[in-house]
């Protein structure tokens, strides 16, 4: 059994501490929003989850490029680990957005450009995970994953820019967006601090989960190699 590296233990400790502080900032430090009330507190983790998804898919595209250049399978492990985490966090982003939307937009779902592009992005990366399962040869699987990860990344800037380009009811919190957007609000300094701290915390959560998920991928490969060795005896 491979022990958990010391640096990973330290990172885990820092992440847990940051997460507890983030919870304090979201629930106690940040004030209640004047119009929307308590549901606005979902915003801090809703945006942070979307941020993790975007970062995760960027890391996948970069790792895919490095794999194609070096043909080192460790980069494929990083890419697939990052996609899995990205999918989890984009799922959180979409579902928490729907819950926030219900009292503000009076609907769980609407065919808004941001909601549609985010869902297409989630489905694209779910397909990445499913299609990989169907390829037995590890090198072919890694090559496919690398190219798919690079091409699918196009969906990330489209999702990010959708509320800035198209007419939408989704608010743009940072920068200027459509004035007809519903649910927009001005952040007070404590709100902004809670928001920035949540982004930092979720970045640490991503790094920690990525490290653990890469370890899992490595162990999985070792088990598979061992099985192949035994079958060949």
């Amino acid at each position, binding site marked *: 059994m491979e022990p958990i590296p010391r640096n990973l233990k330290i990172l885990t400790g820092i992440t847990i501490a940051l997460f507890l502080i983030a919870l304090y900032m979201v629930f106690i430090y940040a004030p209640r929003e004047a119009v929307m009330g308590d549901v606005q507190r979902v915003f801090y*983790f809703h945006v942070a989850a979307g941020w993790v998804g975007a970062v995760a898919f960027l890391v996948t595209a970069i790792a895919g490029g490095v794999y194609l250049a070096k043909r080192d399978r460790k980069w494929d492990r990083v890419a697939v680990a990052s996609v899995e985490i990205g999918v*989890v966090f984009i799922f959180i982003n979409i579902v928490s957005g729907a819950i926030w939307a219900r009292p503000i937009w009076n609907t769980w779902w609407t065919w808004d450009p941001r909601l549609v592009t985010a869902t297409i992005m989630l489905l694209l990366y779910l397909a990445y995970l499913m299609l990989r399962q169907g390829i037995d040869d590890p090198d072919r699987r890694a090559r496919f994953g690398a190219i798919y990860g690079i091409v699918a990344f196009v969906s990330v800037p489209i999702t990010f820019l959708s509320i800035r380009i198209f007419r939408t009811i989704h608010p743009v919190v940072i920068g200027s967006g459509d004035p007809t957007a519903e649910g927009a609000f001005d952040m007070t300094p404590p709100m902004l601090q809670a928001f920035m701290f949540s982004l930092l915390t979720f970045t640490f959560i991503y790094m920690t989960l990525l490290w653990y998920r890469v370890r*899992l991928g490595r162990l999985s490969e070792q088990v598979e190699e061992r099985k192949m060795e035994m079958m060949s005896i």
Partner: protein
Amino acid sequence: MMFLQEAPAETFNYMAFGFIVILGTMGLYVLSLINRYRNLERDMELLDEVSAKAEPSTESA
């Protein structure tokens, strides 16, 4: 109508639901990582045992 009111809207239940989903999904993912890692460790131990048993028999043969 929400935007004509003076007091904040009563949306506590939606907030609670939102955080249950967020924290619950994150918790489930962490548990799945732990569970998958433990299963693989068990597989590895089992493979070690099987190969240890197989080695003496191949030597004697």
